């Protein structure tokens, strides 16, 4: 976890996170929301704060800092699961670009991710399987791994 990340704010219940993505061109307020759904399910939402205060999950801001943004988001996920270890996160790409982005991220970090998390992929026809690289998934499900004691 030595890679650079942004400093972020977190709500007391560890469900909402805010940080600024900063470049020489612009500063974008990023929001991560872990939204409780039903039973053990939470929705992972990640987007930009719009000028009128809404959160846009479809934003593709390209602020030349993808790795730093990803590391920041990963840290929010660690904090979330530290507080809610028995929950499951569901998320998907709001656009094709986003879906590819999530798939690329998971693929890039899969060795590290798999140390701690189970990642399931859902295809558009409802097939559920452990995440495989180079496979198109509509949605993802993440839960914390167990280990034998």
């Amino acid at each position: 976890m030595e890679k650079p990340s942004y400093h972020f704010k977190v709500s007391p219940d560890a469900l909402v996170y805010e940080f600024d993505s900063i470049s020489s061109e612009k500063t974008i307020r990023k929001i991560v929301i872990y939204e409780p759904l039903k039973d053990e399910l939470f929705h992972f939402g990640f987007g930009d704060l719009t000028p009128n205060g809404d959160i846009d999950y479809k934003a593709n801001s390209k602020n030349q800092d993808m790795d730093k943004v990803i590391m920041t988001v990963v840290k929010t996920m660690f904090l979330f699961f530290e507080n809610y270890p028995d929950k499951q996160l569901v998320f998907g790409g709001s656009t094709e670009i986003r879906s590819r982005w999530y798939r690329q991220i998971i693929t890039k970090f899969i060795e590290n991710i798999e140390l701690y998390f189970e990642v399931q992929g859902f295809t558009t026809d409802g097939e559920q399987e452990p995440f495989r690289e180079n496979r198109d998934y509509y949605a993802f499900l993440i839960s914390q791994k167990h280990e034998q004691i």
Partner: protein
Amino acid sequence: MSKYKILPKVSKSDYEISEELDINKYKLTEESREFRDKIVDFITKQKLNHKNLVSV
């Protein structure tokens, strides 16, 4: 017997807790809301199907 894998600790210098942040204060754009609802419907349906298959 099993327990959850211990996650890497996020350094306290990486973040600050803010009372101002409250999940109820945020509003999604309409498109974001529709997208979120679609994903949630899809997943809950899949999990229900999976449960039904397992119980058969």
